């Protein structure tokens, strides 16, 4: 369609620290698997767990 906007879906990963409960949203990287261990927590240094992986659609 001439006037329809182009849609782009970006994948995000939400990690949660099991100790201090801090939640961080970052871009999805290949190899991210739900409920698996991710990077160290920025505030307490504990290993974070991947809580959610989802996509957000943007219109251009």
């Amino acid at each position: 369609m001439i006037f329809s906007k182009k849609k782009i879906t970006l994948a995000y990963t939400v990690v949660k620290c099991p100790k201090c409960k801090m939640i961080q949203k970052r871009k999805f990287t290949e190899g991210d698997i739900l409920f698996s261990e991710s990077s160290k927590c920025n505030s307490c240094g504990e290993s974070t767990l991947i809580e959610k992986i989802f996509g957000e659609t943007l219109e251009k």
Partner: protein
Amino acid sequence: MLDFTNLDFDQLFGMKDDTNPLMMLVWILPIILFVFYGQRIQLYVTSSELKKGIKKLDSFREESRTELIDYLKKNIKLEVDPVKKIDQFIDYFTIMPVDMDPNGIVDKVQHTVRAREDYTREHLKSLSPQISDLELSKVQTLLEIASSLQMIYKIINHMFLTAKKQNNYPLILPLQMILPFIMEQAVAMKDSIPAFKLGQPVGDGIGPMVVGKMMLPCEKQTVSFQTVLAKTNFEDRTLYLLKAEGPGSTVGRPADALDDITSNSKIDAIIMIDAALKMEGEDSASIARGFGAAIGGIGTERFTIEAIATSKKIPIFSIVVKQSISEAITLMTKEIADTADDVSAQVYEMIKENTREGQSVVIIGVGNTAGVPQ
């Protein structure tokens, strides 16, 4: 020379005189044209719209095939060139059993479908004997997508060409009506490819996601093909948590697993969590509760679950998360992912409402568990 600056429009178009021959032609010619060639004109107009749709379907078919072959070449250590074999697989068809006598049809359908799945799995393995189960499930799903898009293109193109060949406008009407729905599904299938390639969860995976999270601290065991079971306790009730084995792309065989559980233990309730197609106007990611087996697919799993529940007089409760066809098979949206905790809370609430202490409940997370481990 004709003087265009001095034209009498009233006279030319017969504004004053009804017998003007030019005006008569202007009115009568289209009438004659539409009486004799109306359907053919409509056929040409509709054809151009359909052609655009078919061209898109053709590109989706080609794109899905290329993506599959590229994925195999980049990610799998292959022993032979996959192109020829993949082209053969894509064209594979399934002949459903005769249903003139419906007695025993479910077993026959199940046998046919499982035989096809087993055959595809084994032959994909022959391309690369070292392939892991996770990669195999991804390739199998990508192959299913490519095969489905190929079939859709072939059927729609056949219907279109038949109508054109016969110059039959009424034959093209059902195609014109059905094409937007077909296109919606085809676009969704094409858009689902990146999620399956990257092993990301799809909207349909909300059921396995909820049950997978509940399973995390428990010991898991394989209970039927590509299906895992975990046993836990909640407020003096025994919970049997069941889902397809993730993070591979599979729906497992929950009916076989339920059969196994109910033959060894007394079950007092079954709770099924699944994604459900939303109606137009309904909010995406809204949660609804109900009765009966919430499970899609060809119907054989649902039939078996219902038969087990009926024979053992076990009530089945369901919780569904509403979504569109596109949301169900593409990367899970934020809204759907955000419902996971709410659904989990509703499951525990449902257990307390419908069972007493000392009773047992089977909780099944239904759907494709791509990207969702346990």
